[in-house]
């Protein structure tokens, strides 16, 4: 397949410059996506999809484990979503 494609292209006479332009365009799109990701993760859990399902492979405390909403993200946006990712901190008094 690879060889076939290359022959095809040679026949089409696609120029180096034209391909470079396309690669720059792709980089531009992915660069913007990376910027968006950096800003979104400050307010939205990166594991939450558009249908509010949790896609994390670890057991977040916010995820619904049973019932009709099983697998759904239960984070309500009030606290930091990362609180669900770690076991609850032992209370201070208990440690003293």
């Amino acid at each position, binding site marked *: *397949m690879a060889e076939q*494609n290359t022959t095809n292209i040679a026949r089409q006479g696609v120029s*180096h410059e034209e391909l470079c332009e*396309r690669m720059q365009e792709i*980089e*531009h799109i992915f660069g913007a*996506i*990376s910027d*968006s990701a950096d800003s979104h993760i400050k307010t939205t859990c990166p594991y939450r*999809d558009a249908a509010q399902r949790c896609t994390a492979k670890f057991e977040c405390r916010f995820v619904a484990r049973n019932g009709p909403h099983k697998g759904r993200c239960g984070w309500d946006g009030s606290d930091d979503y990362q609180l669900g990712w770690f076991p609850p901190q032992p209370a201070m008094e208990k440690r003293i």
Partner: protein
Amino acid sequence: MASGSLIPTGSLRMAKLEDISNDFLREEVETFVTREDERENLIARYTAATPKMQAIAAGVVSARHHDVDAMTADALTTGTSALDVMDHGLIAGMALVGIKFRDMKIFVPEVLACARAMKAGMKHIEPILVASGIAPTGKVIMGTVKGDLHDIGKNLCIMMLRGAAFQVIDLGVDTSPDDFIEAVEEHGANIVGMSALLTTTMPNMAKTIEAFIDADLRDDVQFMVGGAPVTQIFADEMGADGYGDNAVECVDLAKKLSDENG
């Protein structure tokens, strides 16, 4: 960059939304693209595309990587030009994905899935890029180091690297020095990217570099490192060849190292 248009303005002809023959794409543009300049550009792009190219774009937007894989292969072998496949299929689809993500209509999981679909198509373009002397710019082995399970940042870097035509071999998380060595030997890669998010696992980056020295392979590869607690100073101390603070820097760094490799 986020506030700028995701679609470069070009000499695209004026067209109307109704002219987009692919129902899915037409609805997507109508529903999700609100900025006038972006809407005009996408409409022009999609109306200039054949139904086959529109189907590829739709496949990227709906993250159907098997379909994009098959459709791209078919288009290239039946005479569609690589530029056409990129302009009116893969790039056209990914541009819409970027807009939807920026406007929070889709989220990280969907974007990663769409990027995977685009990658499935780009796989067929790679030989063409190679033939034209462009890409792959280099082969990069990426992994989160031993003892560390954090991979969101690494995955974003990989997505960016692939977007920039690098061939990336993803070793996942908890990657031992031996795993890195094996991967380099197996794939003949010249760049190794290591990610660490824990202060306790950062030393494993240095240990990996030491393992390459012991195996007499240090001169064959260049190391780039990153992850929230990693700094330029730490990178220098461990003898890495470069440090990147984010996914964009990761690509710039990989390009620089790749150029140095010749």
